[in-house]
């Protein structure tokens, strides 16, 4: 079926009263960015709906992209027809023949914003009902939960027919909720947390700690590739790699083993806060889940959180591992996350970290190292990359190999 436009229904926007304009503007911007490589589309944001005129562009690839854009409740591919009943009948039949199987139940749902059209809402419903009674006697009319709903919209410029409604990603348009720094490790949890942050409209930038030569390029590339996996939801993402090896060496040399992990995490958080402040971020997001590992007991969180007053949001804090994995599979980060490259957290992990560290002890041991000097050194070595949808980092030979095969 060659559709002429896709009608997009806004998500939670409708509840946001005065901010509506800003929300629609942002969503429109995000949709334009997502669909940037379809030159023939015309995208028109309206008060209630966003209309994407296809102008011959196939609908499926456009819909695949739209299904990942946050802030969309649902969308329907529709056919534009001339404003006369013959045209409506012909196209409605073609559409129903394509989408309503033998014996399906259906109803007609008309909306009429052009009050001058010859038939009113009821008239249109009845006319089409009669028409299908004759042309498709196998179909059964059913008002509650029909298999197929034929939607007819009578607007000033034309009449629009659709039968398919695709659920959107929900959430809020990315960028409507300010910016935040996202601590991305490379494990299973933090990409899921990043996805959930994006879902609530947060414009995130990734902060990733790397420790060459203890960690390989692969570990860094894996984090970048994970970031690339998240770009379809919110456009390009800034990726900040923070050198951390020297800090870890210092901590290892000067801090008792039980507090190695706690002090490392405090330094990570201090650095993230410094980066966040530099970039005007309002909050820090991370992938901590209560009780999952030693650093994620409430006592540990308290002893680590002690270094900042900036809000720390933990989207997966109360989720079970199985729930997190299910989401990771849904957003296609799971397979990447389980690739076995050493990351900076595992390299200097003590055999038995304290699960109940004390805040005052953590503060005390931290004074053993030159916090300011070490932080300045790391901040001077930040590596910033802008990561765009479709970029590959782990297998850069892919095209060379493809040519060989």
């Amino acid at each position, binding site marked *: 079926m060659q559709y002429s436009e896709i009608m997009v229904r806004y998500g939670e926007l409708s509840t946001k009263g005065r901010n509506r304009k800003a929300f629609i503007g942002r969503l429109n911007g995000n949709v334009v960015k997502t669909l940037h490589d379809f030159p023939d589309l015309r995208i028109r944001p309206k008060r209630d709906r966003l209309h994407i005129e296809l102008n011959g562009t196939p609908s499926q690839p456009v819909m695949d992209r739209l299904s990942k854009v946050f802030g969309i409740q649902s969308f329907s591919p529709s056919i534009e027809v001339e404003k006369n009943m013959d045209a409506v009948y012909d196209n409605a039949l073609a559409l129903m023949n394509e989408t309503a199987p033998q014996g399906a139940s259906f109803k007609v749902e008309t909306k009429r914003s052009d009050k001058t059209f010859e038939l009113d809402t009821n008239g249109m419903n009845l006319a089409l009902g009669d028409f299908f009674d004759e042309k498709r006697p196998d179909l059964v009319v059913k008002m509650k939960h029909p298999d197929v709903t034929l939607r007819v919209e009578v607007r000033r410029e034309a009449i629009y027919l659709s039968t398919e409604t695709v659920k959107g990603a929900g959430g809020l348009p990315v960028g409507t909720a300010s910016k935040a720094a996202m601590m991305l490790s490379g494990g299973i949890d933090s990409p899921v947390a990043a996805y959930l942050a994006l879902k609530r409209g947060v414009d995130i930038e990734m902060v990733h700690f790397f420790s060459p030569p203890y960690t*390989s*390029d*692969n570990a860094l590339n894996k984090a970048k590739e994970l970031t690339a996996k998240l770009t379809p939801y919110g456009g390009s993402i800034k990726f900040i790699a923070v050198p951390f090896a020297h800090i870890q060496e210092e901590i290892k040399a000067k801090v008792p083993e039980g507090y190695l992990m706690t002090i490392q995490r405090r330094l990570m958080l201090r650095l993230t806060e410094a980066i966040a402040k530099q970039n005007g971020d309002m909050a820090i997001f991370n992938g901590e889940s209560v009780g999952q590992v030693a650093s994620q007991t409430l006592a540990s969180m308290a002893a680590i959180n002690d270094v900042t007053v900036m809000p720390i949001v933990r989207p997966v804090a109360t989720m079970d591992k199985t729930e997190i994995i299910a989401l990771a599979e849904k957003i296609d980060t799971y397979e990447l996350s389980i690739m076995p490259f050493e990351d900076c957290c595992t390299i200097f992990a003590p055999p038995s970290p304290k699960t109940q560290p004390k805040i005052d002890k953590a503060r005390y041991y931290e004074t053993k190292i030159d916090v300011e000097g070490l932080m300045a050194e790391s901040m001077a070595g930040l590596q910033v990359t802008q990561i765009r949808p479709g970029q590959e980092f782990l*297998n850069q*030979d*892919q095209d060379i*190999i*493809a040519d*060989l*095969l």
Partner: protein
Amino acid sequence: MIYFDNSATTRPLPSVLDTYRTVAEDFFGNPSSLHNLGDRARAVVEQSRGQIAQLIRAKQNEIYFTSCGTEGDNWIIKGTAMAKRKFGKHLITTTIEHPAVRNTMKQLEELGFDVTYIPVDERGFVNPADVKAALRDDTILVSVMAVNNEVGSIQPIAEIGDILEDYPTVHFHVDAVQAAGKGVLDMLRHPRVDFLTFSGHKFHAPRGTGFIYAKEGRVIAPLLAGGGQEKDWRSGTENTPGIAAMAKALRLTFDDEAAKVARQQAIREEIVQHVQQFDHVHMFSGLGKDFAPHILTMSIGGVRGETIVHAFENEGVYMSTTSACSSRSGDESSTLKAMNVDSKLAESAFRISLDEDNTMEEAKQFEKAFDKVFAGFNRMRK
């Protein structure tokens, strides 16, 4: 030279050898090595696996690399026997399998497994009903080849698969060594088929390459234990250049497959038309859709197959007695024997096996050679 012995082996394609060489030179690292050279070699192996999976419509994790078809057959059969021996010791196969299957079964019999050999009819086909009748509570494997290597009969894999739908715990192995690029992929991908064996050198890849398909969820024991390659299923350092070359060869083989099959079919028909005019010529391969497009086995009565092969060699035509594997050992064809062919007739059998590079021109040249060779044999007969 006219090369009509493609079921024995095919000539590696120049572009496939280019790939082999480039990969051997530029991606020589051990795919298991941690460093960048290892990563790059691993990427070649995995991308090749992905391409092969896509070509046979499988998932990437369902492809395992081997060294040849014989290894694949041995592995799947012995691996099933080892992994499932707790559940039963009965295996079912046919009387026309390649020795890689047949002799593996014989080994298992010596170890106390019970094997049922399903006979074939006089045209070389297994009856699915016989398979059904042979199934028992303790059956763990059914192994039936897709295309018989000696006469080209395409076995009723889909029908046997349908029967096995009611026996979900039985492994179903199909030896597909002669089937790549011969227009039977739909049959091979019957949902009930659990394992497939392929051999690279039968489709223009270098010798020493092969792969098996193992359906996700089906488990066999490894034959080669060791360093844990291939997810611990098949240890041994990966043959990176061979694997890449095989992936390429398979892509080229499946490229425009239908047209290639039609071409081989036409050549086969042309040759049959010609040789059928002669007395003493007996056809073993049929011409219908139930025979593979590339195999044509026949005999010239009263002349030993070996003599025929050498007579044609003198004319620049290369072919086999029924199968290259058994021709040196001097055994008569086991498939023809299973088809109840008179042993005198079977002794005079020879096999023409085509591939996509053969031309109608070559068929005409073959016919000239045939006339000459045949006339020579006639003199001998008198």
